[in-house]
């Protein structure tokens, strides 16, 4: 078979044009031991993170290990992700490493760490394609939110009940197919009837902005990695209307 020697008229590898230079993580903690804890989070090594957290807990208060080690490490990961140096798997592994350490700190404290706020997540009734939701859960968790994870193929009533019980700052819905996303307006209408005007962020394969913004409470989530930013907005008191104005067209 004949092959070209020059493909410049056939395709352009834009990824090569925008490639971000590799860079090392920065130092984030003033304390040497807690810097090593942060490094384990940045490397995404959950075993190392647990080991170093145990070591740190012998000398430091649990909340200091969390705030000055684990969370600072996760913040550095967020920076590397925002700058395009890190890909999603590195963020997920870092989140796992951070959580491994937080679990140990919470055991030492005898109570769970205060989370920023609750977010209820689910994949639509009749739909089992939930990897988008898995990513949303991990990113929300990594950013300090408590995730009430309802799983996949969740009936409308169960989502509404979870919102009624947990009073979340935001609820999310994922659907791959147009024939399952029809559950979303039903959820929105029941939430409204209960007086729960919670931003309802919907996304997934066939879920369009046009559809999601056709019902009240709906805010279209174009990509899973927007979830934590949206949750921060909801936490700060933005209404669904304000969020729609910011994140959608």
């Amino acid at each position, binding site marked *: 078979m004949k092959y070209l020697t020059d493909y410049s008229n056939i395709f352009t590898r834009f990824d090569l044009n925008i490639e971000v230079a590799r860079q090392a993580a920065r130092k984030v903690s003033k304390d040497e031991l807690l810097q090593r804890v942060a490094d384990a989070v940045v490397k995404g090594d959950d075993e190392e993170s647990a080991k170093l957290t145990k070591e740190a807990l012998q000398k430091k208060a649990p909340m200091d290990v969390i705030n000055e080690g684990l969370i600072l490490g996760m913040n550095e990961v967020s920076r590397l992700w925002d700058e395009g140096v890190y890909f*999603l798997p590195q963020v997920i592994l870092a989140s796992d490493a951070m959580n491994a350490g937080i679990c140990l700190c919470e055991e030492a404290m005898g109570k769970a760490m205060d989370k920023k706020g609750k977010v209820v997540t689910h994949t639509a009734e009749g739909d089992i394609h939930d990897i988008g939701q898995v990513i949303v859960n991990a990113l929300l968790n990594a950013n300090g939110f408590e995730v009430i994870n309802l799983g996949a193929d969740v009936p409308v009533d169960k989502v509404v009940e979870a919102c009624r019980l947990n009073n979340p700052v935001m609820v999310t819905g994922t659907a791959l197919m147009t*024939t399952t996303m029809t559950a979303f307006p039903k959820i929105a209408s029941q939430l409204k009837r209960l007086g729960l005007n919670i931003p309802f962020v919907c996304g997934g394969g*066939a879920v369009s902005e046009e559809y999601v913004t056709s019902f009240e409470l709906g805010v279209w989530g174009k990509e899973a990695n927007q979830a934590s930013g949206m949750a921060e907005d909801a936490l700060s008191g933005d209404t669904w209307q304000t969020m729609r104005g910011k994140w959608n067209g």
Partner: protein
Amino acid sequence: MKFSSEMAYKSADEMMFGTAKKPVKAKRGLVFGGGHVIPEVVPHPRPGSEKTMKSLLREYERANGDALERCVIVGHPQLMIENEHIFQMTHNPKWGGEIAAQTAKQMDDYLQKYGLKAAYRSTIADLRKPDMVNMRDSDYTREVLESFEECAKYADIISIESMGGKEVFDHAIIRNDIAGLLFGQAVLGGIDMEWMWNQIVAIAKKYNCIAGGDTNCAEANTAMFMAGGFLSKDVPHTLAALSRAICASRTIVAYECGATGPTKDCAYEDPIIKSVTGVPISCEGKTSACAHADLCGNVIAAVTDVWSNEAVEYHDMFGGTTTAVFTEILGYDVAAMNAAIDLGYQKEFQACLVNSDKYRGCHGFMLSPDNAWQIGKALVDNNASLYSRGKAAAMKCGELMLGDPKLKLTVFEKESLEGYMKDMKALPAKETDFIDMCLKKYSKVKGFQPKAYGL
């Protein structure tokens, strides 16, 4: 089930679009892989139409009917229509059966009235999500098998997009975990496929229906979509390519159990499958842009026997309904390919398709016929187990990507790939040792039940 031990094609040079070593004949005269390419259109119903069987029947009557009508309007001689079951069609097996019966009648009418040759593929939805039900024993499992029975009575071809191993795959793909991909896709996926496909082939034989094939849409396509295009930072393209190579080890199980093809359109691994089995394959590329983007829109047609658009939701466009419009587009693509065959220009046409995308990205590269063939060869040469052949296919894919300087990789992609190769080299040699390691490593993965795979 016997693992494939030799290649159907002696070299990639022998492989060509339109022709398969083992063509498959359907009633109404279509021959898949019999010398020319056949278009395949895949209508998807609009939201709301799924409310009742009556509304769904009407939706498909129109969507499928518009496709048949457009063939006659523009002169396309052949067509396959696929309906991928939405949840309701498999959850209520009679619904899928009724739609298949209705479509078969429409096709019979068009054959009689106009001489249009058409075939209907019914793709049952795999409702079994491993972390939600026992894959072998649940109400959803029974509904899936019952749907096959109902649809096989009327459809020409039955297929599925099976889900075995997805719980481990989902955990692994977002963690750069190549061992998890091997376990989820090759081992668990392959085990589940053998269990499922022996039953599907038996059902197909019972009703004189064609057992088409399967696809690793739930896993390898998830990886490919997450890798995305040139702006995405979700999953490295090199990892998605390795996932594709691994999945050939499980997708081929359908054919080792007796399925004959035409294979499923969204199985991008089909060029590898064809090189080993010789079955006719259905592929999708640029004309599936209505459903998703990919970086191999032309090269994927290089050895295809059926040319598909993946799925398009039924609604109006300026040029008619979407199913009519895409039938026209697919049919014209196929007319050009068939003209190339009949003029003797197929090698040149194939070269154009390959040069469009071989170096566009990792998927185009590894699915180019020459590389797909080499990956298939690695699979059959290491066929001691699902694991060994999956790993061998991935290693070969990685070696090919690292070894061709015309395939440009970003520093991040190259480092990632080198890391995956190193991780694979460190894995146990024997499947039993690998499974033992994985049963411990993934014991806490949500919903993973070894007994659902007979482990």
